[in-house]
């Protein structure tokens, strides 16, 4: 009988540990999403407030890039406004404990069909925060299947309103 209780205790502890890891990963993903929200919002606020936004929109429509992609070592783009937008997004992400993995600034497709409307932009941001196993750097370096336990990611998008 005692053996059964010990087994139940072990199952409880093991199940609790696994559940805790999953919950911590989900919580970290929520945290990353909040940081992505803040970063996308900061980027749009910077775009909206800058008087050079119309020229910047034309530059984007012409095919210029304003983006971050850590995976492909892309960081930056055309013009001072792009640098300001990226800096604002990175600052907002950092204030919320995250780093930006990808950021893409684009001209809103509606701006292609009208010439009189104010400049419109879309910003998409993906951020990451350390997951519950992030401190085990060697384990995380080898882990491909369950990397969400090492790095939690979240994304968000924002659109300027002119």
């Amino acid at each position: 009988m005692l053996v059964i209780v010990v087994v139940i205790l072990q199952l409880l502890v093991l199940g609790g540990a696994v559940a805790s890891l999953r919950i911590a990963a989900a919580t970290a993903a929520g945290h990353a999403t909040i940081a992505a929200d803040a970063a996308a919002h900061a980027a749009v606020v910077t775009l909206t407030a800058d008087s050079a936004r119309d020229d910047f929109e034309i530059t984007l429509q012409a095919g210029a890039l304003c983006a971050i992609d850590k995976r492909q070592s892309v960081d930056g783009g055309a013009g001072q406004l792009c640098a300001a937008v990226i800096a604002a997004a990175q600052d907002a992400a950092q204030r919320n404990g995250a780093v930006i993995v990808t950021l893409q600034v684009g001209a809103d497709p509606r701006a292609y069909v009208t010439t009189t409307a104010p400049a419109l932009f879309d910003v998409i941001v993906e951020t990451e925060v350390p997951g519950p196993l992030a401190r085990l750097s060697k384990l995380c370096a080898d882990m491909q299947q369950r990397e969400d336990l090492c790095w939690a990611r979240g994304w968000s998008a924002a659109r300027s309103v002119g």
Partner: protein
Amino acid sequence: MRRPARGEGGAESLEFLGAVPFAVIVALVLWQILVVVEQQAEAATDARVLVRDAALCDATRHPGLRDIDAGAAGGTATLTTAGGYVTVTVTLPPQAILPGADLNRLGVVPPSATVSMRHEPC
């Protein structure tokens, strides 16, 4: 399997009864941890909602914590503005699964979340 000797009858039942409280305590502790973690997620959601409202240019009246989360009784929300950023910190009192238990006295860290967003220029 050895047959119980005379006088050993019921020993296993006593062992079982002695171990059951440990199993119950472990289960309760796990349940309590889940409740506090859920509150942590709730604090993060509340902070997110409040800061999104506070970051708007035309926000004339900021909603309170109870306006957005009726279940946040006893919680606090602080709003600060600095350097073009609005920061909201929400702290909830840790909810005990056993009536009358005071988790603050047991050293449980209250669930808390802080979110910052850039303030919209007007």
